[in-house]
């Protein structure tokens, strides 16, 4: 029964600027799973006047797109979207269905999963395909392995062996978007869905600009901690010097690699009330449990010891570079690239290597 289900579906969100970053990541996640299964990636897009988004989805990894392009779907309205997506699932039976683990993805996925019914693994950070067996339930070939954080201290594998589709939400930042391939071809199919009537309606929608700085949307985050206040001998340093290196690093990453970079800070540094940093960093720069959770491609932790509250806000970054004088600093437990040394000596070398101006001002 369950074997009939085929294809990896990804629910794609879009805004004024086209497909969102989360959606491009989701296409990459779907691509990885579909390649392991030998199945197709099908993008699901709902909206109005969105034909060009279908092509974009194909260029970023989709083999096919189901497009619901109707006036009734111009604005996001959960009940109507849920009915539409559910009707597609019920009629076509995908094997895997992925959503972004953001507010919209979760709003939709939970209710659709209940209606199917099937399981929903939320906030997955890794997806794999493996055979799996269980003494009670038996053997399953090519199961989706849904890896998600479990109590912040470990990751757990979640399986949905007996139900299809295997549904998961994928945490933004867990996958890198595939490079755009204008030569890719895919089948775009328009699906007509009649407007329903509901005991609810959306009466107002405002698309807000991304926050400044947009830490969550950055490809590279360069974060500063209390360590910038002193050098390795404990002598006070002007933290503006470290801030300038961070700015240079940001500029080098942006100019040379065309990535979006932002400057972050720890809660400790922001609330230390350092006069020299006034106007340069504020609460909006805060990375961590009470600040923004970031999962950039590259995270620079500069003078950050790595308290748990900070680590939970950045530990899912794809690559973590940490500079600290203390080799025992907890940040080194999770850093892919530890640099043990005085940041005032190491930063110039790092900035130069990345192609920026490593000289002191």
């Amino acid at each position, binding site marked *: 029964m369950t074997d009939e289900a085929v294809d990896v579906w990804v629910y794609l969100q879009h805004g004024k600027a086209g497909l969102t970053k989360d959606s491009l990541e989701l296409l990459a996640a779907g691509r990885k799973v579909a390649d392991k299964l030998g199945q197709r990636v099908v993008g699901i897009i709902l909206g109005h006047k969105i034909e060009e988004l279908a092509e974009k989805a194909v260029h970023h990894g989709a083999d096919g797109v189901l497009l619901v392009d109707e006036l009734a779907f111009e604005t996001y*309205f959960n*009940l109507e979207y849920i009915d539409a997506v559910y009707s597609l699932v019920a009629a076509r039976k995908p094997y895997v269905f992925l959503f972004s683990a953001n507010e919209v993805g979760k709003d939709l996925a*939970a209710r659709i999963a209940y209606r199917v019914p099937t399981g929903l693994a939320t906030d997955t950070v890794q997806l794999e395909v493996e055979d799996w067996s269980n003494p009670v339930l038996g053997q399953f070939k090519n199961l989706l392995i849904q890896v998600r954080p479990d109590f912040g201290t470990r990751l757990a594998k979640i*399986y949905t062996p007996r139900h299809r589709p295997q549904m998961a939400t994928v945490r933004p930042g867990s996958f890198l978007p595939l490079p755009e391939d204008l030569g890719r071809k895919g089948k775009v199919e328009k699906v007509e869905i009649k407007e329903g009537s509901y*005991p609810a309606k959306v*009466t107002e929608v405002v698309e807000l600009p991304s926050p400044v700085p947009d830490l969550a949307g950055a490809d590279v985050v360069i974060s500063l901690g209390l360590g910038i206040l002193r050098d390795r001998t404990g002598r006070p340093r002007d933290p503006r010097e470290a801030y300038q290196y961070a700015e240079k690093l940001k500029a080098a990453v942006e100019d040379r690699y065309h990535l979006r970079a932002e400057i972050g800070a720890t809660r400790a540094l922001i609330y230390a009330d350092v006069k020299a940093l006034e106007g340069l960093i504020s609460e909006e720069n805060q990375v961590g449990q009470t600040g923004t959770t970031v999962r950039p491609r590259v995270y620079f932790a500069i003078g950050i010891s790595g308290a748990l509250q900070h680590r939970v806000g950045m530990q899912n970054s794809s690559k973590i570079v940490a500079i600290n004088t203390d080799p025992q600093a907890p940040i080194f437990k999770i850093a892919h690239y530890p640099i043990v040394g005085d940041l005032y000596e190491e930063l110039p070398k790092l900035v130069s290597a990345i192609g920026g101006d490593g000289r002191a001002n």
Partner: protein
Amino acid sequence: MLIVVLLKGVPARTTQALQIGGVLNREAMDLVLNPHDLKAIEAADFVKRRVGGKSVAITMGPEAKLIPLMKPLYDSEVLGIDEEYVLSDRRMAGSDTLATSYALSLGVKKVVEKHVNPMEEMVEAIKKSGYSEAVKAKAEELYRANMLPNRIFSELPSIHDSIVQRFLGGEITAEAAIEKIRAEMEKISRFIVVAGIKTTDGETGSVGPQVAEGVSELLGKVVPHSTYVEDFDVESSAVTSQRMIGYLSQKLEMKLPCVLTVSPEYRPREPLASAQPEVRYNSYRGKVLQAFKWTAVDLGADPKRLGLTGSPTIVGAGIDVGKPPVQKTVGSSLIFLSDYGPSEYEGKKYGPFSRGDLTVGLPDPLLSKLRSQGIVVVFGYDVLARELFA
């Protein structure tokens, strides 16, 4: 209005989270109220002060652990809940969000029925006994059990015009009284469910929307939901919610019944003074300080949809997140500058290695040789830059 708050007991300390085969053993842990639920209680309290009614909490888990946890919530006069229902049954243990939402949905449905039924009993009493002491006795019994709103019957000194009082005083006919009570039954069926945006243990955020779906299925009509609600107002038959979903700020209007999950950003509005008489009529006698326990049988649950059997997801082995799989220290790690091998050295095979690989497991003499040939180098900033951005 019937206000149903969904609450959860979560582990007090993550280090103490005891698991059996991926399922938390809540009976063996110290539990605290899920911190996000406090916003749901605030929201419920706002609804009660805005339109009147009764706030009822439903929680699921071992009752021996949960009842003490809920105690302070209804002991509080200002902020708090009026009645407490614990869904507790071995058959519910190990439920994932789907099975949990199913059980909670049954709980919501049963709570609503429990409040409709006494009104039906009043209708029957009036039909059967007419203007008699029996009707008054029935009304008093139900009112004191906290099961009739002041509008139907009240012992408050400020209320003399409840439906039953007016009927017994000869002001309205039996038919009129029955019609008015039936209108109250309609009203109590327009309930509101509030929950936190997520729990601190599972962190899925799925239960709110799934209960909306579950209740829709059980009632045979669409129950809308709104998640991440930062602000809302409620009237007798509708809720207007303001929510932030990503970069969208959205106003969603919903007819009752409906489900809300309340954002940490939520701040209750001030209730309108002009609505206070209405609030009094819609309110109940007070609080019931003893929690009600419902089992799977009480709920009329399909056992196949509960517990591990009713849970599509299975939590497998944990993966420890310690050091990243590969750690390269600038200035000390040795890496291959180019692809190398496989090669033989003193009868043993090594490699193949790819550019950037660490030289783990290579014998020292071979390592020195490769270093002198420039194949192996100390990991430095140039290679770091390439690995980060190539």
